């Protein structure tokens, strides 16, 4: 992966996508072989928001900054600014996570990930539980932050449309033991991809024989 690149990892359940992501995150240690990771500050956004229920939203967003030893005013200011950019209000920041809606919790989780200024953001089906309106809003926020910071993204998704909308490169993984069977580079810049472009390319992508075989679909 190059710095600033967005790579989507797609493949059937159980092919080892999550394992790969956890290896990249350093949450798992490999039994055999080595992981070469040149990124300095990887961070992850999980499938559930995983906010700490006993901390107010602002403190949740500032969690990584606190771990880094930033002073209270500095980390709160940084977290507040980022939260505003994500569409969270001061009132939301004062609440405990359980009082926030699912969409607001996801925004807070995304803000928490960006607060540590990562050079690699790992997304573990981070948007899969959201409705299409919220998804598209969060795609926009993600793309905006990525452009502003030049952070690389490695995402796992079941949603091919999501992959075609956000990624520069799509890797198709399959089988047990899992391996990468196809790599698909998308030339079109992410900012220029319209709804129609995404629909058309998803339809074309899903007809490719390599993709169909990877997901166990009959050839068409």
């Amino acid at each position, binding site marked *: 992966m190059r710095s600033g690149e967005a790579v989507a990892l797609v493949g059937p359940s159980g092919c080892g996508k999550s394992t790969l992501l956890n290896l990249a*995150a*350093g*949450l798992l240690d490999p039994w055999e072989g080595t992981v070469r990771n040149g990124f300095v500050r990887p*961070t*992850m956004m*999980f499938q*559930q928001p*995983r906010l*700490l*229920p*006993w*901390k107010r939203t602002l403190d949740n967003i500032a*969690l*990584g900054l*606190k*771990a*880094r030893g930033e002073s209270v005013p500095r980390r*709160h*200011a940084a977290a*507040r600014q980022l939260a*505003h950019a994500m569409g969270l*209000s*001061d009132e939301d920041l*004062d*609440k*405990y*996570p*359980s*009082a926030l809606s699912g969409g607001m919790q996801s925004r807070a989780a995304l803000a*928490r990930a960006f607060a*540590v200024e990562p050079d690699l953001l790992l997304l573990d089906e981070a948007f899969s539980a959201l409705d299409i309106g919220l998804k598209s809003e969060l795609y926009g926020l993600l793309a905006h932050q990525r452009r502003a910071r030049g952070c690389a993204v490695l995402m796992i998704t079941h949603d091919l449309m999501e992959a075609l909308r956000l990624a520069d490169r799509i890797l198709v993984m399959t089988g047990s033991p899992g391996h990468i069977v196809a790599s698909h580079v998308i030339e079109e810049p992410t900012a220029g991809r319209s709804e129609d472009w995404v629909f058309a390319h998803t339809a074309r992508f899903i007809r490719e024989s390599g993709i169909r075989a990877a997901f166990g679909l009959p050839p068409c």
Partner: protein
Amino acid sequence: MRPAHPTRRSFRVAVERLGAAGGYLWSGWGSVASICLFLAAWDVAAGHLGELILPRPQDALVRLQGLLTEGQAWPEIAITARRALAGFALSVGIGSLLGLLAGLSVTASMTARPLVTLLVGMPPIAWLILALLWFGAGDGTPVFTVFIACFPIIFVGAMQGTRTLDGQLRELARMFRLPPWMRLTDVILPHVVSYLFPAWISALGMSWKIVVMAELLSTEDGIGAALAVSRSHLDTAASMAWIVALVSSLLAIEYLLLEPLKRHVESWREFASSRS
């Protein structure tokens, strides 16, 4: 979006705290009412049973007031409180620490479980006999008995607290590179406390009961010893007076100290549920 205003935020937090404290005090009326009902039932029963079996509540209270104003009661209450709290503090310290450590390791918690069952099953009176042999008549016997009776309750609370900690939050802590002290204060302790506090409160109630039993059989002073004396004089009113003193001091500690403390530490639950 309005700009952040720190004083406004702290004002809001202060209002929330005040509101919570006011709500807590107001909820006390319900408890007062049920205590009055209990006193009424006691009075009715006393009317039927006669003074020797069960004195009227007002007699017991007058007697207690007498003991307090004559200055007889305070030293005994202080001695009993000192012993109960010493034993309780020991088991809070040692039980919480060992329970936390045991919860961190699967092997340790599996090893600890049958031992804890054994400790819970052992009747306090058996410990008291052993303590009498080991420590003789003095502070050591009641303090040890309280400690050993409270220990398993607190140990189990702490151990379950650590064992039930969400693995997802542990991953989160690793991902965001929380240093060890932050893992403890920001992730582990807030969760464990919700298990520990109820354990501490039931252990405190236990310590008050155990200390009186230990004193009754092993010491010359304290509420337990005073109860033994009033029993030998067939002075039921004095016995009831001592029991009232005992129960009210326990209620005072629980509702004026532990409960507000618990509400403060767990305020996130309260606000979270009231606002959602």
